[in-house]
């Protein structure tokens, strides 16, 4: 026999509410810092390259995940690419319906092997398609803080 006691009405079950306030500092790292500084100061992207594997890492990394070598070859990457995949998101983080559904996409950049996950805008959801050409829209220089949010969204070219 395991549990002998069973409750007969849900209101009889005592419970307490509590939250877990968590706050942290997240270091961008050597590769991340250079990436975000370039966005903030010049409004453009940088990537790292593994010459041995012929992979241009976007976002840039300090190491190659294929051959594990240290990467110190940096290249400029244009802010154009195409929609590799996308979704129309209908819920917010409280699981409530969004009044305006938003389009999230993974955009592969022309000059890199990776890309960026970001919102699409200036287009209706039903008009988005795989392979669609898009470009990054950066915030004005004085609004940029050196984060992924310095990109407002991607839009059709």
């Amino acid at each position, binding site marked *: *026999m*395991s*549990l002998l*006691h*069973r*409750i007969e009405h*849900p209101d*009889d*079950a005592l*419970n307490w*509410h*509590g939250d*877990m306030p*968590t706050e*942290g500092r*997240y270091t*961008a790292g050597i590769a*991340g810092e250079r990436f975000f500084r370039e966005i903030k100061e010049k409004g453009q992207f940088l990537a790292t390259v593994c010459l041995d594997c012929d992979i241009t*890492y*976007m*976002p840039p990394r300090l190491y190659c*995940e294929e051959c594990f070598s240290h990467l110190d070859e940096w290249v400029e990457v244009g802010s154009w690419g195409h929609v*590799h*995949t*996308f*979704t*129309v*998101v*209908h*819920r*917010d*983080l*409280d*699981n409530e*319906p969004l009044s305006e559904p*938003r389009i*999230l*996409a*993974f955009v592969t950049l022309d000059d890199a*092997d*990776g*890309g*960026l*996950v*970001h*919102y699409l805008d200036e287009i209706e*959801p039903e008009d988005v398609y*795989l392979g669609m050409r898009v470009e990054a829209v950066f915030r004005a220089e004085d609004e940029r803080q050196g*984060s*992924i*949010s310095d990109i407002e969204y991607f839009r059709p070219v």
Partner: protein
Amino acid sequence: MIRDVAIVGAGWSGFRSITPELSHKELMYDAAVRAYEDAGVDPRRDIDTFVTVGEDYHEGISIFDEYVPDQLGAVQRPVQSIAGEGIQGLAAAVMQILTGRFDIAVVEGHSKASNILTLPYILAFAMDPVFNRPLGVHPYAIAGMEMLRYLAETATTPEECAAVVAKNRSNALFNPLAGHGASISIDDVLTAEPIAEPLSRLECAGHSDGSVVFVLAAGETARVLSDHPIWIRGVGWANDTFWLESRPWGDARYARAAGEMAFRTAGIKSPAKEIDFAEIDDTFAYKELQHLEALGFCSRGSAGEWTLEGGTALGGEFPVNPSGGALGEGHLLDATGLARVLEVVLQLRGQAGQRQIDAAEVGLAFGWRGVPTTAGAAVVLSN
């Protein structure tokens, strides 16, 4: 494997959408008592080592592993806790036995999902804090993007994904444990409200509370303890790159790698021919299809049609998720993979009641750690 290992006891509790009367520790205790009864062992005397799986944010307690010994009979004993998928925990228990140092091991996983009031925030907190989290997006968006790319690359249709939901929730009607059984049509699924298009609400597994406990034993001990040990033939697990920006959106490479390791350790050359049925992660409907293909049970792009034609139904040539899967039983957080294993054990023992598969001799269970992860684990079990 260098030593035979079998499951000699299985226990469970909950599998309901709410369990207001039980704390998560009591859910674990309840499942443990059943598993120890089933195996005929006294935890305070016979069990050598204990493994639990969990995740601090799911528990709402930091350093959750400090909270596991007493309700399992594990006080003053070797205890290892793993922040991982349930089958990764099972693999850890198997490895402890393989060392030769331990003969009887326990693995436990649980969910008290009904107590988590902010689950999307917890999943969002798992996304890269620098590159992804600032977008503030519901993490199921990752599943929506994966699904769309998978459909495009394989010519799988939304109808075929919806067929997974209809099948699994119908299977759950024959499973007294499953709380999400329903008779629903493909149309019901396709017309349900969208969460992250093309993913609809009915294609996302709801959650359940519950706990699953297994008692594992080394060969000779297993034969003494049980008339019907269920042998663990092989285990495998793998992670893909975690970067959203580098992962393959249309392909579950982690499942292929985990499956290949499990088949290699089990000595299985042709999974489709040598395995009779499978319990495969279906946290999202398209995942069952993607995982089936990546594990090699059918060719890439053919799982959808196979499902639509009934090949993976209860009476089909290769039943998939006879239990109802996570769509039919409810997602049990870190214990979800162990729920998949539980059904394989019940089927192999011939204890699956109305949903019993004829001549079930070898089965596979596969678990995925959910969005945003690329972690998968597989285990091959047989009579």
